[in-house]
């Protein structure tokens, strides 16, 4: 389960950022996602270089883990139109496998495609779709309920 999901436009401005409901400092996730762009750009550039022209169609969208940090793991995904998805996972969450992250990205990509297919959506605008929001929030860690103190 992710703690933060970000969608970033081709021009590297945020289209959608959603954090887990219990995080205290949301701007920190903004920084995390923002700084991951450096790695994404570099990875995309090196992908473009390494893959030959014939294999451009088969290009892998999934960029894998972008960089480790003490508390989080950050995964990246780039669509054909250079829209980037970033998923931040807590480092403590070791159960999550690479395949699961991939499938999360795929679901996000599908949801994003649905948003773009909406004729009233202006490409480049912030994503305000409820269905996208529900897809994203389904991947986010639900709020941890505070345990009630025992009543004696």
């Amino acid at each position, binding site marked *: 389960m992710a703690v933060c999901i970000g969608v970033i*436009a081709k*021009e*590297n*401005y*945020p289209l959608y*950022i959603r954090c887990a409901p219990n995080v205290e400092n*949301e*701007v920190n996730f*903004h*920084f995390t996602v*923002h*700084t991951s*762009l*450096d*790695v994404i750009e*570099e*990875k995309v550039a*090196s992908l473009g270089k390494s893959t030959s022209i014939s294999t451009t169609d088969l290009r892998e969208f999934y960029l894998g883990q972008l*960089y*480790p*940090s*003490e508390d989080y793991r950050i995964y990246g995904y780039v669509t054909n139109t250079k829209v980037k998805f970033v998923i931040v996972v807590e480092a403590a969450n070791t159960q999550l496998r690479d395949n699961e992250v991939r499938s999360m990205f795929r679901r996000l990509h599908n949801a994003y495609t649905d948003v773009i297919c909406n004729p009233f959506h*202006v490409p*480049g*605008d*912030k994503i305000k779709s409820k269905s996208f929001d529900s897809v994203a929030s389904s991947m986010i860690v639900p709020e941890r309920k505070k345990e009630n103190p025992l009543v004696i």
Partner: protein
Amino acid sequence: MSIVDFSAAPHHHAEILICIQVAGNLQAQQLENALSKIRKHTRLTIADAGRVVYFRFQVDASPENSKWGIFQPHRKSMGFIMLAGCSTAMDVALMHQKFQKNKEVFAEYIFDSRCFVFGIDNAMLQQNKAEVYQYSDVEAWKTCDRDIKDFLTSVFYVLESKRVHIASDKSDRPPLLTAPFEANQSSNSDSDSRSFRKKTFGRWKKHLADISLLAGLYLEALQNYRIAIDALGFVNDQVWLGCALEGLCVVSAIVLYPQGTEIPQISFEKHEDVQKQTLDPKNLLSWNLTGAPSTMELSKFCVNGTEDFIEKYKDGVICYTRCQDMAVVEVEACIKATKVLSTLRKPLKAAEFIQNAIYIGLNITHAERITKYDCMANLYTKINFHRKSSFYKRIAAMQCVAPNLEQPDWFGCNLLLQGTLLGSKLDLTNDRGVPDDSLTPYYGWPQIQLRILHELIFASRRIGDNQMANRYTVYLLMKMNKHLTDAEIKEYCLSLETSANKISQEKETELLQLQDGTILPSLHLYTLPIVSSVSPQRLAEHLRPYKLNSSKISTSVFLFSPFSQQTDDTTHNIDFQWTVNTLSETCLKITNPLSVHNLRLTGLKLICEMKSTEEKVGKLFECHSVAVDVPAQASIDVSLVVVPYTHGCIHITGYEFVLFGIKSRCLFSLMPWLKVNEFEIEVAPELPLLQKTPSSSKENLEVDLYPGEKKTVEVQLSNLSDITIDTINVTSTVTMPTVMTSFLSTRSRPRLDDSTFGFKCRDINLPLLPRQRDVLVVELIAKFENYEDSNVITNQPDARYEGHVKLRYTGIEGRNINWCREEKFVVSASLHPGLFVEKLEVLPSNKQGQCWVSITLINFSQQSVVISSKRDGNIENEASEQIVDRDEQVQLQFHIPALNIKSSKASLEKYKSWNVAPSSECVNNLQTQLSELLDLKWKIPESQRSGTIDLSTCSLSRDSVVNLIKPPLLWEVFFNDGDVTETGHCDVVISEPYTLTVKITNKSDCCIPSLDADLELFQDQLNGFREWNMEDCLLCLSSQSQNFQQVEPGSVVEFECILVFLLAGVYHVRLHRAPSNLCDVGHVMRTSSGNEQCENFHNFSPKLIVSARVR
């Protein structure tokens, strides 16, 4: 080792460290000079040994680090220099003591030491001690180069001897080399085991490699590292293996990627200076007589390409990670690796190393932590990870002012925060932008940018740099107002306004400089407020200049050319002109993008350039400034005034204003949404100003008229300017409201201006001097209309017409270059229904050269009208005066002489041709003649109005036109010398000869080339039958037909024959013109089709009815 060298670089491995200490009262400048003198000697060529060695000088190098000399010899200070400032001999002695004492700290590491004492140059005080040098001044230290070189050479030789010693040491059981933290562990290991010996061997080889590297022997270093790696890898001696791997990687980097190691001097082909020197063959240290090994040789032992380099370096770092005490070495290794990889353009790999370095737990002080983050940020910058860099700069900045600090370092915080601008894409130098448009998204990360700008503003205010804080605030308002809350906007605007008030009292705002040296150009507020449209305005109508001769000279011979479209669109040429000394306006639409705060702009005015055509000193134009308040989220239109002082071309290139104390000059060329770079407007020379007085247009300029009436209107004109008017050109046109068209005949509609109304303006006395007046007299004549349409509505209200009078006037200067001004006014006239000509007909008369004119008039006016005509001998009519009551009609009949066609030769030629009807010009001419001849006048006695009845605009049928024209041939008929032209009748006696003479006069203006006359004789039996066979009835004693050639205008030809009537009866005698040559004569115009032609002709033939009787 606790102190991390965040400036660690791979080439440090190849440099001998020299520690410099400063003591005494040496001035900063002197110290700087001395240090720079010493630091020149980083590269030393040892000619004897054929080596090039490198030195690194570090002020106050930690002796702690030197403890690691066994592990990594480049960390050890091998030389010690003390720079001391002294003023007294006592000081010198103290310094010497200090030198000895400090040297002691390094004693076990250093090979040689020096003390340079500055400030005393007394030979007497010269303490004759080794290693101590005294100079009066740093500048006086002439032997500096030699002193340092000697010192360095001495250090080198000690090192070299150690190297030779280790290399040649064949002792069976060398002691185990240990890193400081291993000192305790080594004792309890088995010193006899094979692995221990292998370990010892490996470590010694590694140590030898390190020293060889320092001594400039790269090949040996590489070889020994290789051996060490093999040996240490075998015994799994992690720490030393890591160090050997790092060593190998570093040497490889120096050899293979010299560009990445920041010491371009280490280049192996360029050791020419070494090779050139004759080497002493006896010198044992002379390592290679043929010179240094080539890069080729070296690269054999280097790592195998970049991938291998990364792999090996990574392995090395992994080895370090296994030992907690190696944290510092690990961090430094990571930094060094990053530096190499950044030049190899492997940013992802480099990022991994940095990432690793960040998470290495170091036991460091707060200040060091800040340095660490700053260092990491700088490393990220090196690999173009600007976002990461900015992130760590910000962390470092936040550390500077961490809440637990007693003395937060706001200066440092501010400096570090400024470093985040690039990574967060905040370009303070950019003052442009595009107007707020929902279609163009904000290209940036607003949450992060806002946070950083807020922090920057706060930090700047804390350190008292209000100008910078204002700059950030303006940037926020200008570029990011969409993302600010209303309260924030309000707060920022107020803070800017208060500081603007302070600044205005102080000096001019100076250029701002970021702490990294970037000078911020002065800010121009292009998008706060936004000017969304600019349109220069035409002058008011009466001030506008016009070309005197409006004949347009086209620059191209083509009506349309695609090439003319290719002119520079960015210069917006304007099709109107301004005038010298006239206030000219330009309208700006100004929008305030802020949601709450009113923007108060002061000194808002245009920026213009003027290219004058004449040499003129002083001001060419003046821009008037205004102050405006632009309400929040509103647009206002502001008119900015410019007054040109000379004629030529004025270019409007931008506008300027002051807001929040910031003076902005905004150029249209930098505002892409305007699509115009500048406006170019022609400025006409100063022109006089003429105005109708009083200027209210309604005054006295209304008249009412009946058709045929004439009235005059006086208009007072005054010259309001200081220029003499010497040319006035008056033109007038008449328009009619469309509603009224049905009142008039359809025919007259297209000819309104000349047929319905006549305008005549009498000239004004020129020149009209300044401040003088004159009167313009306008004459209005309502022309007469033919009343043709049966369905006209007679009870229509009065028709109103407007006569537009246009005065084009100018002074001498304007006339010389063809400029003038226009003054227009309207004279409105209402036309009452009056007399109308219902029918105008011309009927033939039985007299030659005469005709009947019949005019039917209807009186549509509300009063009775008296009609009078001219009394003249030529005209016959019933009465000279006739009264027509309202809605009645009257028919007037006049018997008048037929009229000549007065027209040019050319039009005469025209109407001679068969099919062409008489031209309208001819008809008009005839109608005018008719009007003048009849001179009909009307009078309304009740209202004392009178006028003329003008027939020239009435329509005439073709028959009428024919009847009106005087026939070209005039004839006289004589019968036996008796003139019978008038009567056309005579009596004769049978069997007697009678002479018939017809005199034909050519009255036309042209020569008749051939005239055939044919005599016709017949009897009309009055039953529709004519008896043409006259053989038994009469005799004709001469030819019945005759031909006349070339009948000149005015000449007379005679047709003569003798007739003898044989039987009594009534005979018709007619002279007939052969139809064959009709086309040659003027009569042609009377006919257009076959039958009619003959009839017309016969009507006009000379004829005679002869009654013959028996005697």
